[in-house]
């Protein structure tokens, strides 16, 4: 610890602290622009100049290390004069167009100019003008306002992992710009809007729509990936105008992915379902709630009576709240039906009944980033994950840890650039993933001199597996993470069992990167079948008479969109609880019940580390939409099921969790008695990713996100050898068909553009799922044929 005196206050701070950090500890504010705790020190704005005893010149507090016995004066005459002179310089070329600037009211320059600026400027020359830049559909630019603090530049390079912005030119001609003709395409790009201390970078969708002081700031939780980022939702007249990060060092730090930040646009979409609707004689009619609920309860009761309750199937979105899931499960079970599932994109359910507990991350999120461990001895193996797009902020945490020495290896069916230095990577066709993981298990066993599981007797470790194993064995703090792709894999249970073996050999942790906001909550709420109940896949291969859809759009959200669509179409009745009105639902549904999205209901998401995060509604439900938990409560009462007398969603949660614990209990990734199956590769396999901006009903309807580079229409991506083998050139239109013998055999064809992607393994074609143009292809994991159209 170092002792210093700051403005007369005695302080003791850890070695290596800077003056600004010491001041922060003491609660003393030092004005600054370029300094940001998560970014490298630039010391270029000079706003934080302070007086240090014995130093002849004022020193920048952000870059000056504390030394023992140092005396710092942050508000002395010398310091304030220096700060004021910097402010004068900052303002001479700043347009001072606050009245028309979106940053007005939340602008650091504006705020500090009040304290450190003069009433009038001595600068009477012409001001500099800087042309604006096209950074894409999310970020608006007014570069004349830029004060060249380079926070945005450092963010893209250090946090997002790819330098997409830079400072060109010299002196007062300096400009922040992207590479010529390029936009900023990072999945984390929106954070530079928050980082920009002036109005140079502002939110394009939010632009000119409201002033910050007109907006209510309400806390919420992101409904997208399993991280459960904490949000501040800004609302005006019950309309969500903007989403900002709520800082939580344990979860999202101070960041948000673009998906989390901009998906709010969908909340105000024209596709919102605002009135209950019932289809009568093939025509949709808007009806009152009591009519719709009456119709629904009769439909459920009739089918249960005439065909048995097992004729009903409930598909619940993994983005639904804990309370909604719990009440849907209670409703189904009340009817005597076990057919309920939220694991819509999963295809292998053979671990069900063999699980020791609820699958989860296997550790705290914060542990991932090396906060709680020494990164230099930390080792991570990521199996089957489009990490950057599936979990942008977890990828960011691993990126920072990798910079400090954490070794990261990957086993996957695509070689997407994680913008992390990888120690080793094994990329192969999807069917080969279990074999590759088994090789690593074998290699670790050999290197540790331990016995591998007898089921792996025939497995021989290749060089890459040995390299991955060597990295894992060399660390003292290791984790094996199974990504979305591994969870959706047809041998997901095998991968789970292998990861468990590997963790056992290494004494490490292993877990699942939760795909959706409530991937853990679904298990906790009991939204999974028990006993003879049907899982999400079985309900589609063996179609039901009546389906209850809670927030799900099966044609896009299920592992096999084509099978799901066929199942919906053959059903005698489909009851949809959704915030949105989709064409597909209008075709196959009989009742559309408008329910609230996350912003208009209270509820709880349990994130991938088991953290219980409850939130309140930030706005009134639109139109006649109602929180789904209330709709389910009324349905339960109409069906006279008993036990639906809840007054609040908190009651539902408290009943389920026994209060509001910080973390849920019963988390365990272990499986017992799961047979290890190591299939051999055959034929041409599809590698299906779920693109970041297609992954759930909300984000699919956010127009600005749909205009980003991440939202391009799916193509048939293959490596050069595959293209040559098929006689196809990049850019050609190809016809993709599903080979016969596909497990669920309902696949159709799709016509796509062929693209070159060197990261796709041999004998594979990468075709994104969750998109209308590829839904007809059916199962995400399938053998396909590709031919020139």
């Amino acid at each position: 610890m170092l002792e210093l005196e700051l403005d007369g206050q005695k302080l003791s701070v850890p070695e290596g602290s800077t003056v600004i950090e010491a001041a922060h500890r003491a609660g003393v504010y030092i004005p600054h622009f370029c300094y940001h705790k998560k970014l490298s020190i630039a010391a270029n704005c000079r706003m934080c100049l302070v007086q240090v005893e014995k130093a002849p010149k004022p020193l920048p507090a952000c870059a000056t290390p504390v030394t023992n016995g140092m005396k710092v004066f942050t508000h002395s005459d010398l310091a304030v004069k220096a700060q004021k002179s910097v402010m004068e310089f900052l303002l001479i070329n700043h347009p001072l167009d606050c009245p028309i600037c979106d940053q007005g009211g939340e602008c650091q320059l504006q705020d500090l100019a009040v304290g450190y600026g003069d009433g009038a400027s001595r600068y009477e020359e012409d001001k500099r003008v800087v042309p604006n830049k096209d950074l894409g559909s999310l970020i608006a630019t007014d570069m004349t306002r830029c004060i060249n603090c380079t926070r945005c530049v450092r963010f893209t390079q250090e946090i997002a992992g790819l330098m997409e912005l830079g400072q060109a030119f010299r002196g007062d001609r300096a400009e922040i710009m992207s590479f010529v003709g390029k936009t900023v395409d990072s999945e984390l790009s929106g954070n530079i809007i928050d980082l920009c201390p002036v109005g140079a970078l502002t939110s394009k969708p939010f632009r000119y729509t409201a002033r910050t002081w007109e907006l209510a700031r309400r806390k919420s939780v992101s409904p997208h990936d399993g991280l459960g980022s904490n949000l501040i939702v800004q609302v005006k007249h019950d309309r969500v105008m903007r989403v900002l990060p709520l800082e939580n060092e344990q979860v999202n730090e101070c960041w948000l992915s673009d998906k989390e930040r901009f998906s709010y646009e969908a909340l105000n979409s024209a596709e919102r379902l605002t009135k209950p609707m019932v289809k009568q004689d093939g025509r949709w009619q808007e009806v009152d709630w009591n009519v719709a609920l009456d119709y629904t309860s009769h439909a459920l009761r009739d089918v249960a009576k005439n065909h048995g309750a097992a004729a009903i199937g409930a598909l619940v979105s993994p983005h639904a709240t804990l309370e909604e899931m719990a009440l849907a499960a209670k409703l189904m079970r009340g009817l005597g039906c076990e057919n309920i599932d939220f694991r819509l994109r999963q295809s292998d359910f053979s671990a069900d009944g063999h699980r020791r507990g609820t699958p989860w991350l296997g550790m705290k999120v914060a542990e991932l980033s090396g906060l709680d461990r020494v990164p230099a001895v930390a080792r991570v193996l990521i199996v089957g994950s489009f990490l950057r797009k599936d979990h942008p902020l977890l990828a960011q945490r691993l990126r920072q840890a990798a910079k400090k020495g954490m070794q990261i290896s990957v086993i996957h069916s695509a070689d997407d650039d994680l913008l992390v230095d990888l120690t080793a990577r094994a990329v192969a066709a999807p069917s080969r993933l279990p074999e590759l993981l088994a090789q690593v298990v074998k290699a670790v066993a050999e290197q540790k001199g331990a016995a591998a599981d007898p089921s792996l007797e025939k497995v021989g470790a290749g060089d890459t597996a040995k390299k991955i194993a060597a990295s894992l064995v060399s660390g003292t703090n290791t984790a094996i993470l199974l990504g979305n792709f591994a969870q959706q894999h047809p041998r997901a249970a095998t991968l789970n069992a292998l990861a468990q073996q590997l963790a056992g050999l290494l004494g490490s942790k292993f877990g699942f990167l939760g795909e959706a906001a409530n991937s853990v909550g679904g298990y906790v709420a009991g939204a999974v079948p028990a006993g003879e109940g049907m899982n999400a896949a079985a309900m589609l291969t063996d179609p039901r008479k009546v389906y209850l859809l809670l927030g799900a759009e099966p044609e896009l959200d299920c592992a096999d969109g084509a099978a799901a669509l066929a199942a919906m179409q053959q059903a005698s009745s489909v009851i949809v609880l959704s915030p949105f009105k989709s064409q597909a639902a209008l075709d196959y549904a009989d009742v559309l019940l408008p329910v609230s999205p996350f912003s208009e209901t209270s509820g709880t998401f349990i994130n991938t580390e088991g953290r219980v995060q409850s939130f309140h509604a930030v706005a009134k439900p639109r139109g006649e939409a109602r929180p789904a938990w209330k709709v389910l409560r009324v349905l339960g009462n109409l069906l006279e099921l008993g036990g639906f007398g809840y007054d609040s969603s908190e009651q539902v949660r408290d009943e389920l969790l026994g209060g509001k614990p910080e973390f849920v209990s019963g988390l365990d990734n272990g499986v017992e008695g799961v047979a290890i199956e190591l299939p051999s590769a055959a034929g041409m396999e599809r590698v299906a990713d779920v693109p970041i901006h297609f992954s759930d009903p909300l984000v699919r309807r956010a127009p600005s996100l749909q205009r980003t580079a991440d939202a391009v229409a799916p193509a048939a991506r293959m490596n050069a050898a595959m293209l040559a083998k098929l006689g196809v050139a990049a850019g050609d239109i190809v016809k993709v068909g599903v080979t016969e013998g596909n497990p669920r055999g309902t696949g159709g064809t799709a016509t796509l553009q062929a693209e070159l992607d060197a990261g796709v393994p041999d004998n594979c074609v990468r075709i994104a799922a969750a998109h209308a143009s590829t839904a007809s292809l059916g199962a995400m994991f399938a053998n396909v044929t590709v031919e020139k159209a």
Partner: protein
Amino acid sequence: MALLEAINPLLSAGWQKGGHEWRLENDTGWRLKDYEARGGYQSLKKILAGKMSPDDVINEVKKSVLRGRGGAGFPTGLKWSFMPKAAPEKYIVCNTDEGEPGTFKDRDIQRFDPHAIIEGMIIAAYAVGAGRGYNYIHGEIYELYQRFEQALDEARAAGYLGQNILGAGFDFELFAHHGWGAYICGEESALLESIEGKKGQPRFKPPFPANVGLYGKPTTINNTESFASIPFIFRIGGESFLDLGKPNNGGTKLYSVSGHVNRPGNFEVPMGTPFARLLEMAGGMRGGRKLKAVIPGGSSAPVLPADVMMDCTMDYDSIAKAGSMLGSGAVIVMDETTCMVKALERLSYFYYEESCGQCTPCREGTGWMYKVIHRIEHGEGRPEDLALLDRLTINIMGRTICALGDAASMPVQSFVKHFRNEFEYHIENKKCLVPPDVQRAGSSFFTRNMGQA
């Protein structure tokens, strides 16, 4: 010309004696064989053969009191001793990014004596334990960059560079790197950024390059002339080198004399030589006109009026005492035909143009200063402008990441201080105190091109 005989035979011998034009046409002595004929590489051989330890080498340089020839005048031996001994990977970098207006000495060393730089760098690398070196050469002397590459080839072929140099078990690789002409890349940390392939912008210090330098490794950066002076130090011994000059100002130094003199050029003289003598060597004032002012150490050094300058000797301490800096030794001589407002306007434009744009006071302040001076020169000055300029220099100086802010401010402060009457005259009368025809008479641009010689 007794003084000329005392000078360093390894540095400017063979090219100092003639006039400027003579030298350009007779630059054939730069090859390895010529350098060796002048006694080149003997110092290196002596060090390696005599098993002088790196510490001995550093001590000898310390004894010579060789002070950095790039401008700051920091003792070279002391700088070398800052290099951490244990670090496995270290770099040595030569700063030939000679961009200071008025300075052209490194260019001539590069042109006439590239091997003196190479030998000096090898000795330095040996002393600090560096395995690799770079010579960063100013972008505007590309042909000399090419020549340096040839000189490197010669040195490699002769076994002075590479593995096991002269059989002494010492390895050193040296490379040339040419910049693109940005003044800021002469700032040592910006230079390192530029070698690394980044935009040339100074780094915040600390850490200093001796700890975190090129590619994050300990690095020593010296000026071209500093390196080129090293071989001579080991020929005559550190103390003898010091004795050539005066206490605390060791050795000889090259001065680039430009401006209103009859024979502008580089002159190597011992430290402590009177300015009057240097002026005499440069052929005296052109047209016999009266000396008005001198910038003694490159454009960023404060200007000194004639009477002050005539009392100075050419060394770090004397010039500093007079209120300026010896800097890089670029002596810009101005006679009575000079309009000081116009001269300052041109200087300010340079700093405005060359500010890297990284930190606020310099990025914004250099442009502001230039615009105000430009206004004064063009008859649009206001009475409050001089106070404003003074205030701006105070607000820039000492508040920036590197010294460019100070460099831009010092000329403004000193010009206004010493020649305030000219600035006031400009503001009041909207015209120059020195009549235009007088200004033209002193300008070789006009006298040559207008045929008014």
